[in-house]
């Protein structure tokens, strides 16, 4: 494998490790979201505070909510993958044509 591949693998492994280590080594925890932890802090220190506006739409069940979060990730991941795939395809086409047709023509 080339050095470039090793660097990629090391970077991916670092990202995975950063999230896996707290789960494996950390004390048992339910990993509550910081957003709701902060909300709880506010309610504890300001018992008189009433939220004065409610969400226009709440997913209702946590199942539906996680589905919508997955949808958001899928949309983002899909678009990102599409762009990177197109850019890569353009480059491999350009390098394939380069030896015969001189300067690479990037238009499809």
């Amino acid at each position, binding site marked *: 494998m080339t050095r470039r591949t090793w660097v990629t693998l090391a970077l991916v492994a670092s990202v995975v490790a950063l999230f896996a280590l707290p789960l494996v080594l950390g004390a048992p925890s339910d990993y509550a979201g910081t957003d709701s932890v902060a909300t709880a802090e506010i309610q504890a220190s300001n018992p008189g505070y009433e939220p004065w506006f409610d969400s*226009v739409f709440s997913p209702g069940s946590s199942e539906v909510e996680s589905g919508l979060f997955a949808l958001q990730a899928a949309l983002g991941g899909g678009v990102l993958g599409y*762009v990177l795939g197109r850019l890569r395809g353009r480059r491999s086409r350009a390098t394939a044509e380069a030896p015969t047709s001189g300067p690479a023509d990037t238009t499809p």
Partner: protein
Amino acid sequence: MHIAEGFLPPAHAIGWTIAAAPFVVHGARAVVKEVRENPESTLLLGAAGAFTFVLSAIKLPSVTGSSSHPTGTGVGAILFRPPVMALLGTVVLLFQALLLAHGGLTTLGANAFSMAVVGPWAGYGTYRLARRASGNLLVGVFAGMMIADLSTYVTTSLQLALAFPDAESGFLGAAVKFLGVFAVTQVPLAVAEGFLGVLLFRVLTVNARPELERLGVLRPQPTDEATR
């Protein structure tokens, strides 16, 4: 960093909305200008928005026993300068406020100010400094992405401390408390986001060289210099 719907007193909600609005309008004009003058930018602009979209959908565990979102705003700030992210980040926040009951309309201004204004600008500034100091694009990307993420959460903590100062220790005491919730949890996530940014830019420097040269991220080079 999403301040929940209704969890900022009206005066703060209005104040942050007024503070964020000019940045978002300016950002919208920057996006329109970029697409009109350089239609070939649309692909990368989509990638920058999509990156923020994915990352802010994922809650990740941290050493503090809480979980939190990355922001992903550094990529667009580095590629297209921070104004475009003021719009793209706000679109993401609006999506989450309307469909996911995550964040809210009354807190959209405050959340946009932290994630779509402070984060991208702090990240971009850090990127420029780190890149100049190190002479290396990827070192700049790592530092910029990390600070874009972290500064967003520091801003949220300060916004909450301003709205809910501690009864005894005042603003400072509340700031320490909220920084303990948000910023400390965020450190490993910000580092991971830095690595993800490096991964993405390694792909882009190879496959999107013409775009990066036009955007001024890479200097035009006829020879294929190794980009590790």
